């Protein structure tokens, strides 16, 4: 009786409409009831974490094309497309790093690896979530895993052999039988760092800025990224006040985040951008409070020399508003960072 009123074709039509309204997206062949958070992996990879946060995003054909272009002849297989989750490991509400599970095809079926990435997307460690090869123990051992520790995407790429598919095992002690699996792990790690950067780049940047802001401002509970803060007006103002054509801050890649306390009061901001020091770009960030005083300066990958670090550290606690106050290049960079930041804070 009921089907006469609500037939299957009607239902399909209604549900397709619903999907369009609700935002239909790339599906996965597996029912969602089988999805599980990799809690055990997060525990193993970030034992100090007291919580984690999921960020679901779509890995689609455009990402597949980017991977194929960047890492030929590697590509994403169909099972790697769809909605995927990046987990942010958290301690005391501060992001520690990321965990992302990714599978790689192998002759023993899909190998699923949970990768731990630090806030700069360097490999922290990995954990085999699913591996049906008899060689799993060899690649899960610390002796093999440590080859990946601290590696960036570019450094991982250097671990590829000439065929761009295999692991260059020079200098590694690995059983010959385990080499195909080890190569699959490397390809998986490369794709993980690449896909994480492509798909979750904004969230990664936000987590990085949050971590920096929390380091710089103890009372910060909320951080707000300021998009497109470096406007033409700011650039002109900066050029006018510094009488400079650029001291080496790459504003085109700059990020700015405002930090607020629990009551919503502005504490200050964190300015982050590549800085050219001694002819090389370093990811430097400045913490500037609402009174325009520099409270912290740091380089994510360290300073070129201890002396350079000391020169930058000497800017802490000072305010810069004109180039007349600046005696060296670090102070000119402090001036530019301050002016760009304060222009945004005043808006």
């Amino acid at each position, binding site marked *: 009786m009921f*089907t006469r009123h609500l037939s299957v074709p009607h239902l399909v039509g209604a549900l397709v409409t619903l999907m369009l309204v609700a935002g239909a997206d790339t599906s996965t062949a597996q029912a*969602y*009831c*089988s999805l599980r958070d990799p809690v055990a992996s997060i525990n193993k990879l970030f034992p100090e974490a007291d919580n984690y946060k999921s*960020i*679901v995003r779509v890995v689609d054909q455009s990402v597949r094309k980017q991977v194929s272009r960047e890492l030929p002849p590697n590509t994403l297989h169909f099972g790697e497309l769809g909605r995927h989750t990046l987990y942010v490991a958290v301690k005391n*509400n501060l992001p520690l790093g990321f965990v992302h599970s990714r599978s790689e095809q192998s002759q023993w*079926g*899909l190998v699923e690896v949970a990768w731990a990435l630090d806030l700069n997307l360097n490999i922290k460690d990995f954990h085999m979530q699913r591996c049906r090869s008899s060689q799993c123990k060899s690649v899960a051992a610390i002796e093999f895993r440590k080859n990946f520790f601290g590696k960036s995407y570019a450094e991982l790429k250097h671990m590829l052999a000439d065929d761009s598919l295999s692991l260059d095992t020079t200098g590694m002690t690995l059983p010959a039988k385990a080499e195909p699996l080890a190569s699959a792990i490397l390809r998986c790690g490369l794709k993980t760092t690449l896909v994480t950067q492509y798909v979750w780049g904004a969230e990664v940047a936000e987590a990085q800025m949050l971590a920096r802001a929390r380091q710089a401002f103890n009372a910060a509970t909320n951080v707000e990224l300021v998009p497109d803060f470096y406007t033409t007006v700011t650039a002109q103002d900066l050029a006018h006040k510094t009488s400079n054509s650029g001291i080496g801050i790459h504003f085109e890649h700059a990020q700015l985040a405002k930090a607020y306390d629990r009551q919503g009061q502005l504490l200050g901001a964190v300015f982050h951008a590549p800085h050219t020091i001694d002819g090389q770009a370093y990811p430097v960030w400045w913490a500037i409070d609402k009174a325009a005083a520099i409270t912290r300066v740091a380089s994510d990958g360290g300073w070129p020399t201890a002396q350079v670090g000391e020169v930058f550290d000497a800017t802490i606690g000072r305010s810069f508003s004109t180039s007349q106050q600046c005696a060296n290049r670090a102070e000119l960079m402090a001036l530019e960072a301050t002016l760009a930041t304060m222009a945004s804070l005043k808006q």
Partner: protein
Amino acid sequence: MACEKYWIKINHPKVRACIAQSACIVALGCMSTTGWSGDYSDNLRLTLDVSSRSVRYSLADTTGNSTVVGLDLHKVFSGENGDIGTLTTQAYWTDNNNIVKHPGFFDDEDDNRLVYRIFNFNYSGFGINKPRVRIGHFEIPFGIEHIITTNGTLRNYTHGPNLGVKADWGISVNGETSNLEYEVAATRGGGQTWHRDNGDFVYAGRVGTDRSKNLVWGLSAYTSELGETTRNRFGIDAQWYVGLWALFSEVSAGDTNEQDVLNGLLEINRRSPSEQWLAYIQTRYFSVDVDNQGRDRAVQSAVGVRFTPDNHWALSAQYQADLSTFQGAREDRVLSLQLRYRF
């Protein structure tokens, strides 16, 4: 008069349930996307899931069809400092036509109704190493079925015939440590419906080893009273993966209405390296020690294959045969074919 007619249709409980769920889904789907520290409401997976199944029954010499349409929804709720919980809803309109062997919640072989496969919220807000609390409709935590999802597939394990219920409404505590996972549940015994007969209950629990390993063990316990039937079970299950091959087994012992039972399952399956193909062969064994009549046994075997060429299609076939039946009933052979598409 016409208005009244339409109101009766809209006011039908099944239509109300559909409308309510649709409203929830639209509301969830329309939630906005913001940053890491903001109102995080976009962790939503939503898929329209359509499947059609044809079943050939040798004994009845007839063929049945079943069409299933539903929404598979998975939504992670996050707060400022971490995940709060996960909502999973799978409500499927199921239209049976001459499905001779059907689950008990269908009135007859031509019934149709909204079927809740999984419909629950798993609260995880206590922290990463703390237990979670699941409320809603979920699979009974017992045996291999708890680990290997068979919902909406032709492949089946022993939940229905062994426990009398596959999924139920209730509450559970679940979690995992580095080497163990567990779920302990108390449910109402209504199966598909919230309605509960006086005295009905299901208590069940499973503790298993880390499922990322190639050898996984689990221990389960179950006790229930469903209508006039009382069941008690203890079970042990294992999964052993060797390359592309896997061996699954489950043995459970206990009693049904004070008659001793011993049930088992053995499955061997093989995947292709790309995992687009899965083939399996399984045997299910059920036995009951009938008072003064000795042990009565039923044995079923099934062979099946599933092909998933991409993220949308899943094509399955299964042939199931009774090798022996309880009380010498006639043995049946059932051939099932299923086409499934997830949008």
